[in-house]
C-alpha cells in the first residue's frame, strides 16, 4: 500500500474513532455538544414526621425505584441520632431509621437529585402480581353499593371494547358528579380517595390493578402529599392511568416513587406519622449533570480521563489541550498560505501567553521585550561571549525586563501587565538571538517580516484558541484530538500550491 493511501486510511480511522467517541459521549452520556447548555435538575426532599412514644423507634420509608426517564444523580439521608441502613425486600428498597429511645416530634430527611431524560417512564414487563382479590360486598348494608358498583362496571363494559377503554370509561364515570351510582359509592366510602374506589371497582370487575405513588415535578412546591396513579393489567401488559382525566400513560413530569407494593411509610414506636415532599428545580450546566450521572456508573471513558484528575490539574490541561489546536493553525498557515515565522511552533507558545495576558497587553509586552532584548543583545555581541553564555545572558535580561515591567506597571496601576510572567522566557531569549542574527545577515526588514509573521500566526492561533466552542470541545471531548490528528495528517499530504506561491510564480504565467 502506498504511503499516501495509508495516510488516508489511518486519518479516516482516527477521525472515525474520535467522532464515534464524541457521539457516544454526547448521545449516551449526555455531554453537551454546545457550550452553555443547561439541564433542569430536580431536588426532591422527603420529610418523615412523627411523634415518638419514648420507646424504641423504627421508621421505614420506601425509596423510589429506578425509573427509565429519571436519572438519579445523587441522594442524601439525614437523621441525627438515628441508625440508618437501606434494605431490599419484595423488589423494593426501603430506608430504615432506627433508634433505641426517642420522644417528641421527630423529623427525618431523604433528599435526592434527579434529572429527566427522554424515554419511556416504565419498563415492561413488570414482575408484579396479577392476582385479583375480589372485594367482600356480601353484607346486607352493602347491597346498594354492590348494585351501584356492578351497574358502573356493566355500563362501562358496554361502552368499551377492551380493558383499556373500559378503565377510561370507568374513571370518567367515577369523576362524573352527576352519576348517581358514583355518588352512592362515594357516599358509602366517605373517607376513600378516587384511586381507592377505582381500585375497588376494578377488583370487582376482575381486573388486576394497583396504585402508583409519586410526585409531579413542579418548581418550588413544598409540603406536597404524594399523588396516586392507577396501573391496570390488560392481559398482556401494565398500563398506567391518570385517575382524574382517565387517560392512559404516565404524565410527563411525574416522578414515580412507589409502584404497587405496600405502604409508603411504616413507623413503629411513633404516632401521627406522615411523609411530605418538597420539590425545587435547579438549572445546572449540562456537563456537570453528565459528569454526575456517569460518575456513579464508573463509565470507563470518563473515569480514565482528565476528569478524574484534581480540579487544579484539570485547569492546566484545559490549556494544554488547546496546544494541538494552535499547532493545527500553524500547519494550515504554513501549508496553505506559506507564512514565514521565526521558529515553527513559537507562535503557539505566544498564543498561550496571550490567552493569559489578554491580546493587547500580550502584544505590547512581547514587542517591548523583543525591542529591549534586541538592544541588549546588540551590546552583548560586542563583548565576544560564547554563544551559550550569551543566550543565558539574554535569558537573564529577559527575566529582569519582565520583573521591571511588572513592578513599573504595578506602580502605575496597570495590573494587567503583571501577567507578563506567562511568557515563555527561554523561547523569548532564543527568538531575540535568532532575530538579531537575521538582523545582521538579512537586515531589519527581514526581522520585521519574520516577527510580523510570527505575531500574525500567534494572533490567529490565539483567536481560534479562545473561541468558546473550541475551548468547550477540546476540554469536554478530548477524543476530538484524534480527529484533529487525522486532519493534520491529511493536510500533511497536500501537494497543491500555497497561497504565497500564487503570487510568487505570477511571472511564469504570461
Amino acid at each position, binding site marked *: 500500500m502506498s504511503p499516501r493511501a495509508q495516510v488516508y486510511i489511518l486519518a479516516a480511522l482516527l477521525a472515525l474513532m474520535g467522532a464515534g467517541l464524541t457521539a457516544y459521549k454526547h448521545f449516551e452520556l449526555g455531554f453537551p455538544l454546545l457550550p452553555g447548555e443547561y439541564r433542569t435538575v430536580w431536588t426532591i426532599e422527603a420529610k418523615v414526621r412523627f411523634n415518638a412514644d419514648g420507646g424504641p423507634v423504627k421508621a421505614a420509608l420506601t425509596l423510589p425505584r429506578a425509573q427509565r426517564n429519571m436519572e438519579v444523580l445523587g441522594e442524601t439521608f439525614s437523621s441525627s441520632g438515628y441508625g440508618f441502613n437501606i434494605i431490599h425486600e419484595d423488589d423494593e428498597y426501603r430506608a430504615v431509621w432506627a433508634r433505641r429511645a426517642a420522644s417528641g416530634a421527630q423529623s427525618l430527611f431523604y433528599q435526592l437529585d434527579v434529572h429527566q431524560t427522554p424515554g419511556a417512564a416504565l419498563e415492561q414487563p413488570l414482575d408484579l402480581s396479577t392476582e385479583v382479590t375480589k372485594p367482600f360486598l356480601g353484607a346486607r348494608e352493602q347491597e346498594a353499593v354492590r348494585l351501584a358498583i356492578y351497574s358502573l362496571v356493566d355500563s362501562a363494559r358496554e361502552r368499551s371494547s377492551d380493558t383499556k377503554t373500559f378503565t377510561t370509561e370507568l374513571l370518567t364515570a367515577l369523576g362524573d358528579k352527576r352519576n348517581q351510582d358514583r355518588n352512592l359509592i362515594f357516599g358509602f366510602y366517605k373517607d376513600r380517595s378516587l384511586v381507592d374506589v377505582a381500585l375497588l371497582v376494578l377488583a370487582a370487575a376482575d381486573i388486576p390493578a394497583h396504585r402508583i405513588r409519586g410526585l409531579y415535578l413542579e418548581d418550588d412546591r413544598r409540603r406536597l402529599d404524594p399523588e396516586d396513579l392507577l396501573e391496570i393489567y390488560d392481559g398482556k401488559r401494565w398500563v398506567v392511568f391518570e385517575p382524574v382525566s382517565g387517560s392512559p400513560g404516565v404524565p410527563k413530569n411525574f416522578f414515580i416513587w412507589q409502584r404497587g407494593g405496600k405502604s409508603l411509610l411504616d413507623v413503629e414506636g411513633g404516632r401521627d406519622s406522615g411523609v411530605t415532599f418538597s420539590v425545587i428545580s435547579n438549572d445546572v450546566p449540562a456537563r456537570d449533570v453528565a459528569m454526575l450521572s456517569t460518575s456513579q456508573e464508573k463509565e470507563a471513558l470518563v473515569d480514565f480521563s482528565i476528569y478524574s484528575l484534581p480540579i487544579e490539574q484539570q485547569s492546566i490541561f484545559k490549556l494544554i489541550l488547546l496546544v494541538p489546536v494552535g499547532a493545527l493553525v500553524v500547519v494550515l498557515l504554513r501549508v496553505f498560505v506559506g507564512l514565514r515565522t521565526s521558529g515553527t511552533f513559537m507562535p503557539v507558545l505566544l498564543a498561550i501567553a496571550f490567552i493569559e495576558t489578554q491580546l493587547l497587553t500580550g502584544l505590547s509586552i512581547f514587542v517591548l521585550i523583543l525591542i529591549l532584548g534586541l538592544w541588549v543583545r546588540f551590546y552583548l555581541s560586542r563583548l565576544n561571549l560564547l554563544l551559550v553564555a550569551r543566550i543565558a545572558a539574554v535569558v537573564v535580561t529577559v527575566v529582569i525586563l519582565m520583573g521591571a515591567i511588572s513592578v513599573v506597571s504595578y506602580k502605575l496601576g496597570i495590573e494587567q501587565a503583571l501577567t507578563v510572567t506567562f511568557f515563555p522566557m527561554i523561547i523569548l531569549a532564543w527568538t531575540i538571538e535568532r532575530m538579531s*542574527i537575521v538582523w545582521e545577515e538579512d537586515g531589519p526588514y527581514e526581522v520585521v517580516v519574520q516577527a510580523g509573521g510570527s505575531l500574525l500566526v500567534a494572533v490567529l492561533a490565539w483567536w481560534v484558541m479562545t473561541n468558546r466552542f473550541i475551548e468547550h470541545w477540546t476540554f469536554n471531548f478530548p477524543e476530538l484530538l484524534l480527529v484533529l490528528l487525522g486532519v493534520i495528517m491529511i493536510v500533511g499530504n497536500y501537494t497543491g500550491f500555497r*497561497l504565497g*506561491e*500564487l503570487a*510568487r510564480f505570477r511571472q511564469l504565467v504570461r
Partner: protein
Amino acid sequence: MQLPSFLRGGLVSPFTLRKLGVLGMNARNVHYIARYNDRDKYPVVDDKLNTKRAAKRYRIPVPELIAAFETQPSRSRVMQVITPLQKFVIKPARGSGGKGILVITGRDGDDYLKPSGNKVTALDIQRHVSNIHSGLYSLGGKPDRVMIEALVDFDPVFDRYSFEGVPDIRVIVFRGFPVMAMLRCSTHASDGKANLHQGAVGVGIDLSTGKSCHAVQRGVRIEKHPDTEMPFSDLVVPDWGDLVRLAASCYEMTGLGYLGCDIVLDRKRGPLLLEANARPGLAIQIANGIGLRTRLEHIEAMDLEQLEKNVEERVNYSMDYFAAESIA
C-alpha cells in the same frame, strides 16, 4: 523601502500554474524530496565536510580545504591557521541558506578585508569561529564544525555580470538527469549576496548550450544586469559540458534522487562543486520562466533501463531533451 513582492500584482490561478507544470513547495516536499531522498543519505550533503570527503572519493573537483576544526579550537590554533592566509572562506559545516559564511579577500596589516572592503579583526574571526561551533548557524542549534576553505579563484568570465559577489550555478539533478540550471548573479540591491529573494538576478541557462535564455530580478524579467548594464543575451557559461557532467555525477556521489548542485567556475580548475543541497529551492523556475514539474514527470515516466544509464549518457540525454528550444 520596497514593497514585498507578494504585495505587488495579483494572484494567479492554481490551475494555470498546474497546467504550466510549475512545482509548488508542498508538492516538492511530498512528491520529490520525501520520495526520492533517503533520510540516511542527508548527512552527505547537510555536512559540507562530508560532501568534500565524498567528492574526493568520486574525483569530483571541490575548492581546496585548508583546515577543519572539529572541536572548539584555541585562539592560537585559529591564528596559526589564518595568519599566513591572504584569501579564504570560513564556513559552518552544517550551515543552511548561506548563513555564517565569512569571505576574506585580502589583508590590511593585521586586519582582514571582506569583499565589500570592510575590515575584520582577528578577534572578530575568532568570535565567528566560536559562534559557528556553538551552533548558531546550524539547524536546531546543534554544535557545528568549522571549515576554512581556499577562496575560489573565480573565472573572470562573469565579472561583468556580477556586482561585488560571486556568481554560482545551480543545477537541479533528478535521478541523475540534469533537468534545469540557473546562474545567480549578485547585484548592488542584493548586497553582494546570491539569494534571489534579496534582489539577486536569476539567469536561466539553456541545458544544451550553456547560454542564457531568461533573466529575472525580483520576479520581473530583465534583459541587462541592473548594475553593469551587460545584456544577458551574450552570456555563455564556458566548459558547459564539463559542468553538467559534474552535476550529474553528484547523483552517484550522494545517492539522492532530487538534488541541487551549486557549482562555481575556477579560473584554472574549471567547474568546482561548492555544495550539494537535498532541498533545493524553487526559484530556479522563476529564473528560467518554466515549470520544473513537466521535466521531472518526464524523467519519472522512464523505465528502469533508461534510468540505469551512466553519467555521459544521462548528460547527453538531458542536453538533448531539455534544450531551451524544445521547450519553448
